[in-house]
């Protein structure tokens, strides 16, 4: 985000497109997150000032749903599926290998801002377990070695 006036302009556009009723809290927050990749507090404050919704309500909604993030994230989000099938196929090992390769803990972002590592509930590709999604791109049957290769591949793509 370059300046606060940009944010306001973008949110005005979202409100114009989506609406401002109380049932629009989730779609508005989703629009904010898809634009900024997280939900800045200023966005919550500005939406509250422009609609009937209170900051409390918006913050309550934003913190209830696991999709919403209140902190900035890395350029790529690596989601390790921890659904049942992935769990029994070794998802813990995948997260562990990712943590070691990226030198961060689950839920954190690398210091260079490139990657955020997340554990997620089922991605619905259970027969290909364990799976990992980088943004929306899903990789199948990822083991410890595959996890490291996946990151190596992303690093090569960066350079």
């Amino acid at each position, binding site marked *: 985000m370059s300046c606060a006036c940009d944010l306001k302009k973008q949110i005005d556009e979202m409100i114009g497109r989506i609406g401002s009723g109380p049932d629009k809290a*989730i779609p508005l927050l989703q629009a904010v997150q898809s634009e900024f990749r997280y939900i800045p507090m200023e966005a919550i404050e500005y939406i509250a000032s422009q609609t009937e919704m209170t900051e409390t309500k918006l913050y309550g909604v934003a913190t209830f*749903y696991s999709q919403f993030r209140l902190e900035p994230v890395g350029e790529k989000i690596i989601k390790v599926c921890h659904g049942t099938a992935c769990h029994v196929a070794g998802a813990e090992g995948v997260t562990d290998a990712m943590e070691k390769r990226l030198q961060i803990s689950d839920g954190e972002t690398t210091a260079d801002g490139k990657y955020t590592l997340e554990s997620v509930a089922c991605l619905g590709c259970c027969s290909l377990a364990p799976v990992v999604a980088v943004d929306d791109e899903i990789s199948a049957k990822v083991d410890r070695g595959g996890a490291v290769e996946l990151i190596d591949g992303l690093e090569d793509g960066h350079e």
Partner: protein
Amino acid sequence: MSSSFKISVGMSTCNMAAGSRELFQTLEKEGFGDDLSIMGCLGMCHAEPQILITDTDQNEFLYLDVNPAKLDKIVHDHLRGGMPVDTWLFKASQGEGAELLGKQQRIVLGNCGKINPEKIDEYVARGGYQALRSVLIQHDPMAVCETVLASGLRGRGGAGFPTGLKWKFALAEERDKKYVICNADEGDPGAFMDRSTLESDPHAVLEGMAIQAFATSADEGYIYCRAEYPLAVARLKTAIQQAEEKGFLGENILGTGFSLELHIKEGAGAFVCGEETALMASIEGERGMPRLRPPFPAQSGLFGKPTTINNVETLASIPWIIRNGADAYHAIGTEQSKGTKVFALAGKIKRGGLVEVPMGISIREVVEEVGGGTGTHRKIKAVQMGGPSGGCIPESLLDTRIDYDEINRTGAIMGSGGMIVLDETTCMVDVARYFLDFTQLESCGKCTFCRIGTRRMLEVLTRICDGDGVPEDIQVLDALAVQIKDSSLCGLGQTAPNPVLTTLKYFREEYEEHILHKKCRAGKCTNLCDYEILEACTGCTICARKCPVDAISGERKERHVIDLDTCVRCGVCRDVCNFDAVKVV
């Protein structure tokens, strides 16, 4: 260049994860762009990606497990040379194909993998929207409710409430505004039939919803879909637009005066929103917290108006029931459970994927015959059914029939249809801990016993898995389980203890081993096991090469040794050993 074939590439999330997009691009580059089409998931997720070639005489050639090298040969021999590559073709009537399909009966999955889900004409060509047309022409909502009731269809989201009865309750409400909702918030880890249906045959769900709306006199509806399913949302948007253009949705449908406006609501990641009152709160823009029933949604639902909520699979069954009649559906299944059920097979299973079987066949038939068993020398230990609300059915009870009430008697539930096969490498205490970890994270926090009780249960289970369990822990788990069940408002809390209760019932000895002997026989709980390489070792070196921490040493052709100080007990050596020479001690 155009060939005389139609080439359909599997483009479901699972197919794409297996690499179908690259195959599609290769075929484009090879000049087959004009013949290329896409299809959804055939359910055979164990053998993706898949390509279906249809010739001008409508002969179908299905290739499974296609990779770039195989595709080269298929292009050369089949598409250019006219000679199908026989050894790679899927044959439905023999061998594995017959095992897989022999006991299946496809109603919900009938079109999946058969049509291009982004082209409404292909759905219509297979009888699509005929059911809607016929109910609109007949113009008798009560008759539709009666048909669905007579079919015996019960809610496929898990609760198993008779669908026709639900519709009659909503129809009886005389109000100016009513809603219908499709619950596509498929949150059970291990269940993916709704994702696949929405991606592969979205119009069946839309047609089901239009009939649901007509039968309950509603004129507006929502599809509440998980945000984790972006492709399903995209296909639904395309499908709604096409259905509106063709006059199957929107104003004055097929000129009959009936109108239905449909919206898609994307969930924001909350398992509890699969509960109907929480789902409605979420559509209203609130935190997704369940409320007390009554009033039931049929009386006071979304925005206070009568609302009918059905799950994806339930709705996708409706067009078939209307087209074929209640009797045809009622003829399938058991006394109390009619029709077919889709199961998502995953875990330690040879042929994982989606299968649709008539009610009344045994769990063993589904897992061992249709699914092909574990596919390894290991035996099935249990089948987890019903996700976090369900339980683990031990191998000794696999002859239980697929029937709502019979499965309930085991302590598990039918649930949405996830079936995770567990073998001897799965620790049952760890499975219980896994589900409690899930439910305590997803508890909305409204009811104290669900919010804090699940947390306490998780702490006890974690302690047991870490090797710090004490004998009293089992009584504590038993007591908490009963309290949480009795004191929770919604299904999440009422069923959260099920994974613990069923594992305690059928696998108590594993709890006792963890607590009293500090042993985990499955080799999963890292503090409670050691790995050892037996004399059967041939010195093939695969374990040493695959070990993530280089804890295995040994000369080629000689027995290898694990350095237990370095070993992280991940079990990779046991998984890769071809000689069953790695043992948990």
